[in-house]
């Protein structure tokens, strides 16, 4: 959605290297976006900060950081209040969703500036650690499947929503993240199962179309405000994509 897809890698090692480069680029983008967001919050310009939060959140989604793959730093950057004793008031609730919460619940610089500062630091820390993070060979095949499982489980369920209502935008970004991983893996996937990448892509195209159809005046509506007749094509296309994506990890499995 924001940039072109990478060229297919010829080996899993090459795919992992290319993916790491992709994440590094995204984290650089995110660093700049959070710096801007932090400044707006510091200036008490919350009207500017709200769309800037979305920009940053979407960049994070495009990384495709499914299933806690960045550990504690990932939680600090993208954690949720669930499971914390004091919920949204818990000091352990930090990062992008914490800013989303504050920006949609009448909070200002006093509460949010320290959160933004910590977020900026955490992203820097992740960016610094990235070259040394080891990634299992199974990571990318699973990621092909599970980024969009998270869209269904976390975004479209409303579980992630801290007031922004942007589940559709986040899902579109997740879709892009999935396409990036799939593009990197295309040669490897098709080597195991000729034509499978095209088959997956067809389901993703349908999801793209369904997502786009919800837009009004070029803007993403709040997901829960979309009528059922508009939600069904989105969840239907997502479900169909997931059924097909679920086989990608198995292609690379040695289970018997």
């Amino acid at each position, binding site marked *: 959605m924001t940039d072109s897809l990478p060229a297919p890698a010829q080996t899993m090692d090459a795919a992992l290297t290319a993916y790491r480069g992709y994440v590094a680029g995204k984290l650089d983008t995110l660093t700049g976006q959070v710096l801007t967001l932090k400044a707006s919050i510091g200036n008490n310009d919350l009207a500017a900060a709200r769309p800037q939060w979305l920009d940053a959140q979407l960049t994070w989604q495009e990384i495709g950081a499914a299933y806690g793959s960045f550990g504690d730093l990932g939680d600090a950057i993208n954690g949720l209040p669930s499971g914390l004793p004091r919920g949204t008031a818990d000091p352990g609730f930090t990062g992008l969703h914490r800013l989303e919460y504050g920006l949609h619940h009448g909070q200002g610089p006093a509460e949010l500036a320290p959160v933004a500062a910590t977020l900026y630091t955490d992203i820097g820390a992740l960016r610094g650690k990235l070259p040394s993070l080891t990634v299992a060979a199974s990571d990318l095949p699973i990621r092909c499947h599970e980024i969009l499982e998270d869209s269904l489980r976390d975004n479209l369920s409303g579980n992630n929503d801290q007031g922004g209502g942007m589940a559709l935008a986040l899902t579109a970004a997740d879709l892009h993240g999935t396409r990036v991983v799939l593009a990197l893996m295309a040669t490897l996937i098709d*080597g195991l199962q000729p034509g499978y990448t095209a088959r997956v892509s067809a389901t993703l195209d349908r999801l793209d179309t369904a997502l786009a159809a919800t837009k009004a005046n070029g803007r993403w509506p709040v997901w829960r405000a979309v009528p059922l007749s508009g939600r069904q094509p989105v969840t239907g296309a997502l479900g*169909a994509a997931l059924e097909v994506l679920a*086989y990608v990890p198995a292609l690379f499995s040695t289970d018997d």
Partner: protein
Amino acid sequence: MTQHTPPPGPDAPGTASDGAEPHAAGSALPRRRSFLIGAGSGAAVTALAATGITAASRPPESTTAAPAPAPAVAFHGANQAGVYRPAAQQRQACFAAFRVLAKDRAELKTLLRTLTAKGATLSTGLRISDPVPAEDLPAVAGGPPPNSGVLGEDVPPDSFTMTVGLAASVFDNPAYGLAAKKPKGLTGMTVFPNDTPDPAWTGGDLLLQLCADSTDMIHYALRDITKATRGVLALQWRINGFHSAPRPSGSPRNLFGYKDGIVNLAQDDQLVWIGKDSGQPAWAVGGTFIVVRLIRMLVEFWDRVGLGEQDGMIGRHRATGAPLGGTTETDVPDYAHDPDGQTIPLDAHIRLANPRTKATDASRLLRRGYNYDLGVDLNGNLQAGLIFASYQRNIQDQFEATQLRLVNEPMTDYIEPFGGGYFIGLPGVADKHGFLGEGLFT
């Protein structure tokens, strides 16, 4: 799960098929795997690429006998099962309404083929050693199994029936080009004076009525069917119901404590199946109109009413099910000799529903409803009632004529119809070569 880096691509001779080897037709899991990734065979690969629901045009294998004594109900026949077949109504049911997301006529046809294959397979039962039905995404080593395992490895027939209906909205959708095939009298559900329709429990393009003798079979079947139709059917509302055991004998009781379904239509009455002379489109012959009404019963309120008043509202004795003045449930009320309602009040439910006159005989319908028990309402009352399901050859002349007689009956104080819909139950599938709704496409 153990993962490994796959071998490099085309440059390394033989590696592609080596890479596929773990999934290939081996000894341990032969036929289930071979459909998906058959050792690199071109046919298997093509099958995978074309899978999803398009593969459903291949009829399911039905060579396996029922694995357990639980009976199988024939799927094939002139009419769909779940209406008169099996003769004894099953104990459990699910009524589920779906939005159809098929983008065009071809996808709709494929969907109906998939549903047909599912209905046939689930009715017959399935053993783990059977080939994966063509309508399923097949198993891959290390991947998701095609069978949820809720019933264990083998799927018993369990008197399972699947009955499919289409709403008017399918015929009105220009993408399907079915306007000329729309049955006469298939409208949206009429809102009657005592109804309080809830959008969350109404609408839907396609009805699935799943019946079986156990709750886990119902759950399995719905889950299995939705997986095979993901992206084409969007589940919109669903409700599970149960058909009680006789207490102590005779017809089962509803949640008001009254025997229900004592008087019902026999097939010989010819009021259920759409016939050749019905004036309906030829494709619909052998079908039936299905009316589903979700009727909440305010059971706490009902339980605070005197038995005499309850009996008067129903027109029967609660204990025996006999019409008032009678002794057994099969006694026939004699309205001719009770013109003023001295014995059975003129506004008793059974008297309004079926006045037993020549003029009203043709408005009788087949009922095959289920009790439901959903949970708790806003105020701590039980959310429970009746899934009313009726089958008739004409909605207006039968269901609606009956319903209009019941408007403002005394019992309306204790019930709240809140959902459901009107559907054309498709004609039956003659044999394994046909599919549900086939006549729509000719």
